[in-house]
């Protein structure tokens, strides 16, 4: 026991706690089970330790110890690779895949959350050692709030308006509103699609977001989220029954065609509105400098 024991313990506990707080299993179903969680909790613990130890090392004038943080950076980049590989492998077995853009977004989130843990531990330990435990507790609360802000990105409802629209067939062509989706030849398939299918039109709220919702990865993310939450009326070997999103070239609206098992348009609209806007799909064509 020395003067650093309690600050270090405090920093590690807060850092690990913040990782637990940021590790939630929801409809994205990832990480699903105990083993996946243990990996991330252990890494969170390591990140917390690294962030915490940096402060006493600096105070003891061991400046080279800070180079450990670069080691941490390369370590957590590995986390990103690991997540990307696992999710890409699993993606080929999904009825409606997530798509690479969504996977990349998840992988980046896993990496960045470890850095948030390092920062939290760093700040909390610094406050404890430089001032006192009460300031450190205050810093903890601020860090939790900051993490909450960093965690929540924008939703689709922030950038588009979602409206339900009828599905129609013009000959063999399937349309959502006036947006052509695909050619369905067989009358029985057409009946199934009219019975189970649902159509939505997403209208961009401004010019800048047109390219964001046109992004193929963003579109796939919408289809995946809806299919996960509401089920999907398809199986392997029925390529005709596939949810699709097509774009109206004239005004940038997109037509969403889904085949949910749960026939509840209001719920579907809610889910589409809550789809995250993928970091990698965001473009800012109107921002010059």
């Amino acid at each position, binding site marked *: 026991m020395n003067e650093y024991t309690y600050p270090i313990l405090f920093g590690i506990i807060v850092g690990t706690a913040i990782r637990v707080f940021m590790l939630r299993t929801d409809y994205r179903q990832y990480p699903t089970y105990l083993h996946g969680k243990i990996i991330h909790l252990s890494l969170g613990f390591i990140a917390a330790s690294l962030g915490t130890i940096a402060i006493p090392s600096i105070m003891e004038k061991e400046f080279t110890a800070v180079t450990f943080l670069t080691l941490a950076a390369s370590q957590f980049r590995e986390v990103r690779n690991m997540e990307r590989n696992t999710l890409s492998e699993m993606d080929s077995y999904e009825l409606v895949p997530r798509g690479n853009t969504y996977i990349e977004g998840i992988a980046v989130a896993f990496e960045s959350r470890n850095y948030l843990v390092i920062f939290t531990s760093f700040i909390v330990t610094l406050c404890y050692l430089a001032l006192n435990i009460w300031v450190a507790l205050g810093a903890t609360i601020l860090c939790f709030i900051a993490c909450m802000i960093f965690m929540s990105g924008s939703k689709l409802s922030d950038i588009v308006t979602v409206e339900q629209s009828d599905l129609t067939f013009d000959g*063999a062509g399937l349309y959502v509103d006036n947006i052509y989706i695909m*050619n*369905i*030849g*067989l*009358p029985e398939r057409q009946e199934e699609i009219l019975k189970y299918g649902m159509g939505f039109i997403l209208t961009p709220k401004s010019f800048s977001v047109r390219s964001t919702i046109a992004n193929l990865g963003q579109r796939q993310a919408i289809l995946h989220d809806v299919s996960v939450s509401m089920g999907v009326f398809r199986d392997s*070997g*029925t*390529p*005709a029954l596939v949810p699709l999103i097509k774009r109206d070239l004239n005004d940038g609206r997109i037509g969403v065609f889904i085949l949910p098992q749960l026939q509840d348009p209001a719920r579907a609209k809610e889910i589409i509105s809550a789809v995250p806007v993928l970091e990698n799909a965001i473009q800012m064509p109107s921002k010059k400098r």
Partner: protein
Amino acid sequence: MKMEKAILAAVTTKTDKVAGSAAVFTCETKEEMEAVAANLEAILDGIAHALSDHLYIIVKH
């Protein structure tokens, strides 16, 4: 080179409308054509697209 899309088969009631290397199935009636196309769709894991009233193609996507 990886083929993204390919016509696996054509089902028709008018043989003179189709030619080429894909398998062509000639049918007597529209109903027969639909039945054959539905079967082929399931067997080949493709989608039956209607090009006209008497011509279906099965396409692998």
